[in-house]
């Protein structure tokens, strides 16, 4: 017997999983919960739509497309931002 109300997914959890969903990396069970949440939540639906449009506009950039030098520059920038320049901790 299937649960008539599947395990709920919170909006926070959905936001954390949205990249994995885009990459097709979620398990079938999590993908079902993710998409059912979207049927119920207009806010998360809007978030997904914004993500989709951003990807359409900027094109697809996979991790492998980033050169080692650029990757190091980005990591350094993020590290500095968190450590001493007012960024979130």
């Amino acid at each position, binding site marked *: 017997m299937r649960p008539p109300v599947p395990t709920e997914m919170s909006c926070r959890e959905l936001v954390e999983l949205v990249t994995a969903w885009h990459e097709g990396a979620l398990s*079938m069970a999590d993908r079902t919960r993710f998409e059912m949440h979207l049927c119920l939540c207009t806010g998360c639906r809007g978030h997904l739509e914004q993500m989709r449009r951003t990807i359409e506009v900027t094109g697809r950039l996979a991790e492998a497309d980033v050169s080692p030098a650029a990757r190091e520059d980005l990591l350094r920038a993020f590290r500095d931002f968190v450590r001493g320049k007012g960024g979130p901790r």
Partner: protein
Amino acid sequence: MIAWKFLAPDARGPFTGFRWPRPEGGRPGPWVSAPEGTPWEKWIFACRRGDLPFWLDEELWRAELSGAVRESEYQVAAARARLVERVAAWDAAARLAFGESCALAARDAAAAALEAAGERAAAASLRGASGLAQIQAAAEGLQAGAQPAGGYVADAARTARAGRAATAGYAAAVLAAAVAGPPAAERERARQSEWLALRLGL
């Protein structure tokens, strides 16, 4: 195999944004296929009748599935599918009526549970409410002892009024589970499926 597919406006996939080719001139739309070798989890998904309440969206289409078909818990997956025709009866009025049926089911389930718990005044207040606005007001006016049932009823009525049929159905199922356990929620989902099949002629 004939199944059903809920889509966003303009026959767009509600999650992927994929634009489904529509039927033209009384003929089904062209076939859409998952690329050869795609695992079934990434095939095309559609609903059996009992799956419908879980996936409500703005447009409902009759879809033909072909090739390999795999059934999963809440949907069915196929390697190929095409849209056959739009279910015109699933319109704004039907969405509102579906939501109202869920709010009424929630009202009755909550009233029965409150009565069983000795909250007779609260139960009578809910039972006396008819129409979505009245049900919402009655549920919102319940005291703390009548919660969380009252909150679910209010949610069902409020979302139904806003045309959010999926959320109204969800609230009614969650309430059923909360007051009478999982089998009651399953019965509520089955009621919703029957309602849709009857109203839409599926």
